[in-house]
Structure formats: C-alpha cells, structure tokens
C-alpha cells in the first residue's frame, strides 16, 4: 500500500488531549455516524467541502466572481448563500479568498507526507512520551491510508493511537489495530434504537467491534503517561471514551446499561468521561448547517462524578477528561 493517499482535514501539532504525551493528531475526513452533538461537523462528509467564516470575511466579493457555476449571489452575503447542493468543491472561490474566510475542508494527502510531518516532532514525542493519533471522522473508513500512516509512523519509531467510533467493518478496523499501540474507542449509547435516533446508525456493529478489540487488547495499563512503548508491536491498549451529554445520553437507564456493557468486557484499560461542550457550534454556521443541541449545557462536575461512581461499581477504572476523580477540575 505504498503511496496510499487519503482525505485529511487537519493535522494538529502539540495536541495534549488525544492520548499520552504531546502528540500530533491527524484528522481523517468522512464519518459513518451523524451524532447530534458532533463538535466537528466538517469531519462528517467524505467529500471536500467549503467552510466559510463570516468573522474573517472582508466582503470583497472575489469569491462570487471566481465561482464558475455562479453559485454565490455576490457581495458580502455571497459565501453565506452558497448553494451547497450544487457546489462541486472546485476550490476556485477558496483560491480567490485572500482573507482566508473560505477554506477547503479536506485535502488529499499521501501517507509518506504525513509521516514526514510527524518526524518533525520526533524530539517532542521522545521527550514527552507522545506520538501520533489518527482521529476523524472515522479513520477506519479509509483503511488503506490509515494503515499506511500508522505503519509508517511505527516504522519511524512513533507511538501510535487510533481514535475510533467503531462503526466500520471489522476487517477495516482490525487492519489498523496491528499498527496501533493505543485505541481510544468512543461508546455513545447502549441502546440500538436510541443510538440510531441520536447518531443515524444502530450500535450492534460498534459493540461487536468493541468486544473484539477488548478481547485482543494488551495488558490493561491504566496510566496515561505510559505511552513510550512504540515499536513493541503487542496488541493495543484500550481506552473507552464516553461523551456525556445532558438529557441525551446521561439518563440513569443508559448509564446503568453502559456500566453492564463496559463492565462485562474482557479487558479495558480505562473509561474516560468526556463532558459535552458546545465549542463546535460556530462550525455549523460555517458549513451552512443547523445545530440542534444549541441549548444543551455542559454536565456538572457532580453529575460526572455520579456517573463515574456507577461505572466504578462495575470494577471499571474511570477518569473525567483524563483526570483522576479527585483532581481539581
């Protein structure tokens, strides 16, 4: 699979919340879920798309003039009125935008390019116990490319982590796991029907994949700082991450069901609770989309601790945003 290429929408250096140490997170575009609370809606479509920031726009109208299909009405309101169904993401408006108000989300990148960029931060990974994290979107939807990046990163001595929602064929996912040191597996809801309503997909495939990953997972090292095991090529460690969204998935019934589900897994290093934030709301406007959860608050610390207690009663090792329960928030 040398020369594998994929669609990437961001490469974030100095990421400190996507696995141990200081990391580079590579965001692959395209997801098989449509979670209502998704904080990166630009990750969902598996096609490039144009994103517009009104705050940066200087209203010069160059985009409208550049559009070969005449999809913008012109003037300041032009990009806001982009007919997204007709847009083929040719990128001419983006090229014309000096202010950077229009950006193309999703660029084709070759795996070697990505690995070469990772090498720039080699000293940082070595000094902090960090490495690379593939995130998305869903990396397993681009298995050849994702595997090539992970394999290349490992060959260059970097610790590899994979962030997945698990909603992909096992064959695709397992192809990545052999090059992965740590899996960050998102679990959103225990009920298949609810899962369908909230994310657009049922959860049977996700849970089956989770059990398989758990069954093969390496020794359940719970510590987050123990990431310097790159190149040992044992089975990956598993961390389960649960987003906590008030009135969406934090109901006692769901938490209890999740506790049973996760408590029954063969091997889990840790369960991380990720409190919901509405940081992504501006991106919906930038994509000309509606955000449905705009009135949902972040969960309280007490509520998170309550959920953690229920999970811990099942023998699970639980943290909140990566921190121990008694650390100051």
């Amino acid at each position, binding site marked *: 699979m040398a020369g594998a290429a994929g669609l990437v929408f961001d490469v974030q250096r*100095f990421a400190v919340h996507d696995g141990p140490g*200081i990391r580079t997170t590579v965001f692959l575009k395209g997801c098989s879920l449509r979670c209502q609370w998704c904080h990166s809606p630009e990750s969902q479509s598996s096609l490039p798309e144009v994103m517009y920031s009104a705050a940066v726009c200087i209203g010069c109208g160059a985009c409208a003039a550049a559009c070969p299909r005449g999809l913008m009405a012109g003037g300041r309101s032009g990009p806001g009125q982009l007919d997204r169904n007709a847009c083929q993401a040719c990128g001419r408006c983006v090229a014309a935008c000096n202010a950077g108000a229009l950006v193309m989300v999703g660029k084709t990148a070759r795996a070697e390019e990505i690995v070469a960029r990772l090498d720039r931060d080699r000293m940082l990974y070595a000094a902090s*116990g960090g490495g690379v994290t593939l995130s998305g979107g869903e990396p397993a939807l681009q298995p050849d490319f994702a595997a090539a990046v992970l394999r290349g990163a490992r060959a260059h001595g970097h610790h590899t982590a994979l962030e997945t929602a698990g909603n992909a064929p096992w064959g695709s996912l397992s192809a990545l796991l052999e090059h992965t040191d740590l899996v960050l597996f998102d679990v959103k809801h225990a009920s298949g029907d609810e899962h369908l309503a909230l994310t657009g997909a049922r959860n049977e495939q996700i849970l089956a994949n989770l059990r398989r990953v758990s069954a093969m997972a390496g020794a359940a090292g719970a510590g987050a*700082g123990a990431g310097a095991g790159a190149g040992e090529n044992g089975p990956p460690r598993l961390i389960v991450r649960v987003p906590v969204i008030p009135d969406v998935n934090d109901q006692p019934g769901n938490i209890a069901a999740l506790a049973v589900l996760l408590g029954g897994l063969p091997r889990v290093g840790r369960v991380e609770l990720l409190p919901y934030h509405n940081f992504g709301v501006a991106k919906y406007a930038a994509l000309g989309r509606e955000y449905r959860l705009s009135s949902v608050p972040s969960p309280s610390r007490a509520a998170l601790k309550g959920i953690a207690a229920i999970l811990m009663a099942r023998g699970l090792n639980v943290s909140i945003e990566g921190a121990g329960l008694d650390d100051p928030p």
Partner: protein
Amino acid sequence: MTRHDRLEVLLKTLSSVGRITPPGGEAGRPSVLDEPGAAASPVAIRKARALAWLLRNVPVHIYPGELIVGLPFRELPGDPGVQGEAASESGVGEAAGGEAAARLLPPGGAAGEGYILEARRRLAGGWPLEPYSPDIFGIPAAGAGTRYGLLPRFATDQELHEAARVGLDENSNPGHLQAGHARVLAHGWSGLREMAAAKLAALDETTEIGAGRAAFLRSVLIVLDAARDFALRYADLAETQAGAAADPARRAELLQIAAVCRHLADAPPSTFWEALQLHYFTHLIAMNQGARQMGRFDQYMYPFLAADLDAGRLTMDRAAELLDCLWVKYNQLTDITVDNLQNMILGGQDQDGGDATNLLSHMCLDATDRLGLVDPKLSVRLHRGTPEGFVRRTAEIIAAGRYQPGVYNDEAIIPALVGAGIPLEHARDYSNDGCSELLIQGRTNPWCFEAKVHLLQCLERTVRRLEDFATFDDLFSALKGEINRAVEMALANANLLQVAAPRISPNPLVSATVEGCLERMLDLTEGGALYNPAGLCASGVADTADGLAALRRMIYVERAVAAGDLVRALATDFDGEERMRQALLNRAPKFGNDSDEVDDLVVALVQHMAGRVRGRVNPRGGEYVLGLFSYGDYIGHGLMTGATPDGRRRGGGISPNFSPAPGRDLEGPFAVLQSTAKVPPALTPNGRAVDIALHPSAVSGPDGVANMAGLLRAFVEVGEMQVQFNVLDGKVLREAQRDPERYRNLTVRLWGFPAYFVRLPREFQEHLIARTAGR
C-alpha cells in the same frame, strides 16, 4: 518566633510603600567637591568619595523579624518626601506605625511606558523615522542608579556638560553591570581591600599610567572602607535595638545580626547566614551602582549551606527561613513599574561539564513558589544532564502560571560562547544579565543593549524604492545596505557612550568585585574586566522576514501584486487595499511555523548582521556580539514604523525579541522553536529570547506538568538558546481589561520579567492578547 509568623511579619513590611519624590533640585544637595583637594583629584576618587558619603549617611533600619538586614537606599538621607508619604499602596495592609516605607515607587508610570512616551515624543517632534538613532538621546536605562539613592555632587560643571551630551549624569552607571558576587564571598570586602592595598604598595606612581592605576586603586579602597563602615553601622544599630528589645528571643537574634555584620566588616563570611548577609549588603550597594543581577546564586552560595549543614550548625528549616528573609529583602527593591533586573539563574553545568544543580537550586525554586513574589526574577539553565526532578519542578512552576523561570539551554549557549572566543570552562559559568543577555559571571563588563537596530524600519526604507528592484535578490541587497548603515550608526552611538562612561561613571565598587579590574588596576568602565563584550541588538527580525517572504511571493513569484501598487498601498496604510493586505498576511508563510521558505530568510538576515558585527572592537577592547532582542521596544518601534509588506498596519506592534510576530505562529510551540533553532546560536553570542504563549489547557490536567517538562526537554534537544513562557488565556486577559480590580494580581511575562497585567499600558496589553491568538 515560628517561621510562619516571621514570614507574616516580614511580608507586612512590604506593604509599606513610599513614593519617590522627584529630585528637588540642587538646593541642599551635598557635595564632595568642597573637600580639600577634591577639585584637583581624578573623577574616580571624587565618585568614590560620593559613594562613601552615601554609605556613611544613608539611613539604616532594621524591620521586625528580619534576619537579613539592609534598608534600600533613599533618594537623600532622611528625605521627608519618602518617609512622610508611606502609604498602603498594595492593599496588603497598612504601614507599620512609625516604620520607614520598605519599598519606594517613582511617581506614576507603568512598565514599558517609557518606550511608548519616547516613541510619541519622536513622532510629535517630526523626528525622522529611521532604523537607527540619528541623535544620541541618552539610553533611558543608563540613568540606572537614580532609583536607589542619589549621590552627592562630585562632577565638575565641565564634566556634567560633556556627560549630558550623551545622556549621562552623575548617577548614571551605563551598561548592564553585574557584580562579581562569588568573588566577594570568597575574599570578603576585607580580602579585596588587601588585594587593592598590596597592588598600590607595589606601584610606581611617578608615571602617568602608574598615577592612573593608583587613582583607581585608591577609589576602590575608599568605597571598600566605606562599605566596612556601612556594615558596622548595622552592627551598632542591631546592638542598640537588642538593648531595647523586650522579647529575649528577638534580643538574641539582634545580637546575632550584630555579630554577623561585625564579622563581615573585617573578614570573609564563614557561615551561610554571613554569606547571605554579605551578598545582600553588596547587592544593595551594587544596585546603587547599576549592577543588579545575582548571577549563579545557587553555585556560589551552596558551599556555605553545605558546610553549615554538614557541621550541624544549621537545619534545613532555618536555611529555608533565611532564604525567605533574603527573598523579602529583594522585594523591598521591587519596583513593579520597571524591570529592576534582579535576576538569578539556577542549575546548569559545572566547569567540567557535569551537572551543577544542587540542593540550593531546588530551595530557590521552592522559595519563589512558596512566597509568590516577583523578585528575584528566576531563570534556570537546562542541559541534557539536568536531573529529571529539576526539570519537573521547573515545569510545575511554569505550568502554575508563575511566569518564572526563564529557561536557558546550555547545549546551545555554551558552544556559542566558545565560538565567540570564551574558554570552555568560563563559558560553562555563563549567567543571564539583564533580561536575557549572556555574560560570564564575575568576569564581564557587558554593554549588552545600547546598540540597537530596528530591522523593520530598514525594510520600510528599502521598500519605498521597490520599483527599482528587478529581482528579489536586488531587493535583498538593498535591504542589506540599509542594515549596514543602521549597524554603523548603532555602533557609533554605543562607542560614544562607552568612551564617555569613564569620564562621569567610574565604578570602583563593582570593579573591585569583577575579575580583571584589580589585577589590571583598571576600572571596568575602561576595560578592566576580563571580558568586555558589547552587544548589538536587532529587533523586528520576524516581521522583516515575513515581509520579505510576502514580497517574494506576491511581487516576484506569483506576480499577483504590482510593485507600484504595493508602494502606494503602504504609503496610505492600505487605504482601500484591504484585499492586498489580506493577501500579504495570508498568502505567504510566516516565521514561527517551521516553514523553510520564510525561516531561511531569517537565517540570511541574521547571518548578514553577524557578519557586519564580527570582529568589531569596542572602546574597552572587547568585541561586539550580536543579540536578537527588542526588550519593551516592540511597541515603541512599532509606533514609529509605517505599514509594512508583511501586512502589518502603520503603528502596529512588532514581534517581541526573537519571537514570531504576534498571533502568526499557528503550528504550536514546538514549531516556533524549530523555526528559531534554524538560526545557528553561534551567530548570536549575546543571546536571544523566544517568547511563547501557551494556553492554560496545554499544561493543565493530570499530564500537564509532564507535558511541560517534555516541552522543556525538547527545547534542549532542538538547540534553541532561551525561551520564556507565558501561560495565557486571551479571554482572561480581556476580562482583566474590563475588570482590573479583580485581576490586580494577574501576572504576565514581559520582555524578560514578570509584571502585573492590569498596570501595563494598553498597547502592551493588546500585544499580549494578540500573542494568544490561534491557541
């Protein structure tokens, strides 16, 4: 008194703050010119007598609970303007009844304001906007001594007149001086006195050179004798107070203070307490003489600590208490409106290249963390062999938002100093000077910042002729020509100041402490120190390279913009040309993102300047060395600079020190270091500082400290020389602007020192907020 109680009492003294009254004119000011034979004596002798007069007349005072003593020097002894206005400035509490104010503040003023006022003055006066100073207007910091006690008159009218032409006066001690604290501790004042006396006895005074040397040695003897008397005044005072003390424990302490001071008058220190006290007395006098840094305190002080601990004379608890006492004393000299340069550097390599970090290095970090005071301004030296515990402790304090310590990299700095001609074992004994410049402690008289080149103004002048340049290489050549002129002007100015200094500012006290001066019998202002470098400081490196990169892309490669259009747009501050400005901002790479396209331009610029400076000799016989610093002038320099081709608007702030332009580094802090480290440290032996703003979330959480420590280790590996961190949240800074009362203690790091955010001029606040963009 428990340690806790003592600290509470000591901190209370810091709440008594007096205002310095503006100098009240010459009326009533004492003079040493009337003393017999004064008029005919060399200026060094008269200056020494003036300082001696101050040491014998300046008020002495011991506060409750103090173990280390020494009142900061007043403007004039008994100045009612100081003591009468003792007030509760900080809100911590009222001044103790009848006590003299512990700290003094100048009237009005905020950190960095001088830079802005100077820029405004020049703009209002219609002064030409030049990348160099066409006039000699006096370096603001050259008037160093004035905040810590004015000397009596000692200069003739003719001397004063000539000094005023280069902005100097009787209280100036220009250069960034540093006293040789290690040497003082090793020999004591008495040992230095004996050294000077022995030299004098062997001297033939009949020759002109001999007479000059004799005058220097006598000036040293005059101030050391006065220093002896100064210590004895404190011994007497302590005994008097002991006699009146009701509390027997305090009486015993005061008698011990008296014994310490009496011992120091005639002998080198033999205990940790005596060493700390001698250090502080020396520091007090040196502050008056323009030498304010402590250098490698943990190195020269540790043997005294270790000996006392080994002998069982001292407990760890008492040692920490003595450090508390010293730290509070430093803060009596704190003036939050200015960088008072009370720098201390910890850790690093020993003379053999091994690790020198010791118990005291940790105790100093702990004291700063425990007390939360801004002085001393701490820095650390790291290298590959620095113990993990010390890196981690450093990371903890940075991550906690103490804005200390600054971090230096032995692996980059020591080879750069060796490249500049310093022997390896001396290079390993480097220290920071003012904010961030480099010197060999105890052996150097550095003039590190007086020669300044404003690179962005060089570019501004070059770009006015943009239509003349057919190629980018032509443009770059023309820019080098402008830089050459700016360098020559800067060196000429700095030379004039250095020639003038010995005629008005001989410095017998600091000379006695710096290796080379007694040996050569030459004042340090005349080149007596072992090392005599002078710095040429270039600022605006990042903005200039960003501008060049934009010009190359837009004009010469993509040909998207016509040269004439760009010149006109710059002249009108991009009026009607916002689209062009956005292209300049967004369509060309910016320094600080690990992009070779622009980073290579930075390397070329620095290489060119280093080439112009290399081998240039200063009036003291040392060579000029290049440094990349702006200090607080990134605002003033910006105010005086028109619109520039990096897309910056007229008057906008520029990059601080050797940092990326505000808000333009978008690839994270390590990419910044990768960009800067492309410039070989050997090109900048005077040092350079990279300022990095981190969002609190990057260093918080369970792995926050470990990640910060990882970043520090990576900084050592990548080979950058020096980095200063601000852990800043732009939102919090905005909130602080809206509600300054609530955020009066919010500390930020300026060009090398911590300061209170809400007391900064608005321009500096905005610049800091811009630096947090994209994080």
